[in-house]
């Protein structure tokens, strides 16, 4: 297992960070989060074309750059750090991996390259109004009609679902239950019978949509009824990606808190010289570093396709969720009154932390899953 990044990976991280410093400064984040669309197409173009980030971990035969999950995780960490507003997580992490996991060779060859190049923005619709990202949460049905399928039901918490060009949908055969009868379908964003509603979100930097399907025609991806395994694999990968995105935000918000503690003067001294603040910062560093270890370890496991990826994904998500939430809350506290203002950026991270904590399963869910996956 890899416990350090190579020099090339460190260089890659610096490149991504420079790009994001230029294209996703706080002012831009604030501008984009107020829009319905939620991203800047010109930045998206640079991100795809110049850096090729959308295809970073996609194999070359499907139009990607052929790097591994560690490079994808590094990219996500940096995006989490800058709160980048772009459909990267939905398209590259969720939709592309879903097709790679579920699709046949021909489907992968036709569907993945436009996602890898960024021309097509796709997303993955799994959870419904109950907010569950496992087989049990899926009720939307797919009925076979001739060579096509008709999808009926509601998907919710779909990241960038209101803007995506194509939507990968997990649906079940009518009457099936649990892991049985699940299949992946692809649907056009402007399909007849599909209505999309942008949800009002706690975290305005990540757009979520509710999608209502009424007799929407979808194309099957992969084998009919064999969707359970690729679904859990896709979610594990997305969870590891999210954990790495979260730890980037956690690290940034910790740095902000510590920097502030060094300059904020009260009682004639920097507040960071008070042990009440200093010790809290030390505890936060410990928690963030531990969560980082979990995120990196899980990313390395995903890169290697390790058998314990499902358990490690849970461990990383629980660990990073707790760390991000705590460090973001503490940062507001350390900032004091100004930390509660709209003008201060800390609340953007706090909202991302709170929302990411629940996205793809809460820390408590993941801890329970962790024990089950360890056979405990």
């Amino acid at each position, binding site marked *: 297992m890899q416990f350090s990044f190579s020099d090339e990976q460190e260089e890659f991280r610096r490149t991504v960070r420079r790009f994001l410093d230029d294209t996703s400064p706080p002012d831009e984040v604030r501008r984009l989060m107020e829009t319905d669309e939620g991203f800047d197409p010109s930045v998206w173009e640079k991100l795809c074309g110049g850096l090729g980030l959308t295809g970073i971990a996609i194999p070359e035969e499907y139009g990607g750059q052929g790097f591994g999950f560690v490079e994808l995780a590094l990219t996500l960490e940096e995006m989490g750090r800058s709160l980048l507003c772009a459909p990267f997580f939905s398209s590259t992490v969720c939709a592309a991996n879903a097709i790679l996991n579920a699709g046949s060779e021909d489907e992968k060859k036709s569907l993945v390259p436009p996602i890898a190049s960024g021309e097509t923005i796709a997303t993955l619709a799994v959870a419904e109004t109950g907010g569950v990202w496992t087989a049990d949460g899926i009720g939307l049905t797919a009925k076979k009609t001739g060579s096509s399928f008709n999808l009926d039901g509601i998907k919710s918490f779909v990241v960038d679902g209101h803007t995506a060009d194509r939507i990968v949908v997990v649906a079940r055969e009518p009457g099936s239950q649990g892991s049985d009868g699940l299949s992946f379908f692809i649907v056009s964003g402007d399909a007849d019978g599909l209505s999309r509603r942008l949800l009002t979100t706690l975290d305005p930097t990540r757009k979520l949509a509710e999608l209502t399907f009424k007799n929407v025609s979808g194309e099957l991806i992969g084998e009919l009824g064999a969707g359970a395994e690729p679904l859990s694999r896709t979610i594990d990968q997305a969870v590891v990606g999210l954990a790495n995105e979260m730890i980037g935000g956690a690290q940034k918000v910790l740095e902000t808190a510590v920097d502030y503690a060094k300059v904020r003067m009260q009682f004639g001294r920097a507040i960071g010289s008070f042990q009440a603040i200093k010790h809290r910062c030390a505890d936060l560093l410990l928690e963030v570093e531990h969560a980082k270890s979990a995120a*990196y370890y899980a990313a390395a496991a995903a890169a290697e396709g390790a058998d314990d990826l499902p358990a490690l994904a849970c461990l990383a998500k629980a660990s990073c969720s707790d760390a991000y939430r705590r460090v973001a809350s503490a940062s507001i506290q350390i900032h004091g009154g100004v930390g509660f203002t709209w003008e201060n950026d800390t609340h953007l991270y706090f909202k991302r932390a709170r929302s990411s904590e629940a996205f793809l399963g809460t820390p408590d869910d993941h801890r329970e899953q962790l024990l089950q996956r360890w056979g405990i």
Partner: protein
Amino acid sequence: MSEPTETSVLEEVTAWLEENWDPELSLLDWRGKLADSGWGCPTWPQAWCGRGLPESLGDVVREAFQKAGAIGIAQGGGTTLAAVTILEHGTDDQKSELLRPILTGEDTWCQLFSEPGSGSDLAGLTTRADLDGDEWIINGQKVWTTSAHHARYGMLLARSNWDVPKHQGITYFVVEMDQPGVESRGLRQMNGHASFNEVFFTDARVPRENVLGEVGQGWGVALTTLAHERRLADGMRSMVRGSQGKGRAFDEYRKEVASVMEPYKWYPQRAGRADLAVDRARTTGRIEDPVVRQAVAKLMTMMRTSEWTARRAKAARVLGRPPGPEGSLGKLAASEVARAAAEVHAMVTGSEVMLSGADGPLDGLIAEILVSVPAVSIAGGTDEIQRNIIGERVLGLPKEPAIDVGKAYRDVPKNLAS
């Protein structure tokens, strides 16, 4: 002579061991050969029982010893620390008199640093040293001393000047323990064990030539001792591993190891025994309880992530990268793991947590965990001091304004000896 290489050193040490290593020798005779040949401390200077090899080749020698199953020089808390400190700060006379019997195991040492009145603020010590002709007269009390009752010498920090700031008035002495003015008493801990001593000095005497380093510069010498404390645990672990052979030397060695390790027998419990948590939760049936499951998962996550964090630090070291924050967190993390483990043990044990000894679960082991864990966040630097270090040195937060800086120590508020 050409520069030693890995191959040449390996050849040389292997040949020497073949020629000399004999488990039927007395331990003292064998260690005499180690000291005289320099193979016992190969990285020490040739003049002082070593061979002047670089650190990397020292590993080659250690591996050759392991491979041959040969016993090494004497080790043990105070003893090992004394050796490295004397080597760095001692006069030639001190080195020639004191080092060899340390390596052979004839002399054991203890560390006389902490006091009842100065724990975290070690430099605030108040044991006094007053010069009387050619001797220093020592008065005061030390505490948390391991193996004081059978040590021949102690490394003693005492205040020789009260009119300068606290760090500048300290002198480092080598004190003979077997004298009328030195009294050691066992110190019983809250877990019932007595692994340490209190040492009382009443007009104890130290000859002038037994000052290590310069008078008044003992703090700098003490930092050498303290810097090596962290490495001790590794040495002790290898000692236990290497004591399983047959022959006279091994019989004597096992006795030595048992004596050195005796104070540490409860240390695994001090660390919380997270390794037992899942089994205990299963045995007690509490593993079905969702609250217990969350606590167990949190504990195991903490264990794994702190282990991975240590491995990240190690990987960065191997690559020669500057140390990141991950290297400074181990001690604080160990405290957290221990506390969390104790919580899980208490949670799954239920009412039996009230029982200890033969009546308690696992023959009293669970009780011993619960009453030993409080030590882990105090010994070797409290959690609070660790947080100061992390806050100041890693995160770069400003220091707390200190009111004792630049003041004669005489005028600084302090705990008065009772």
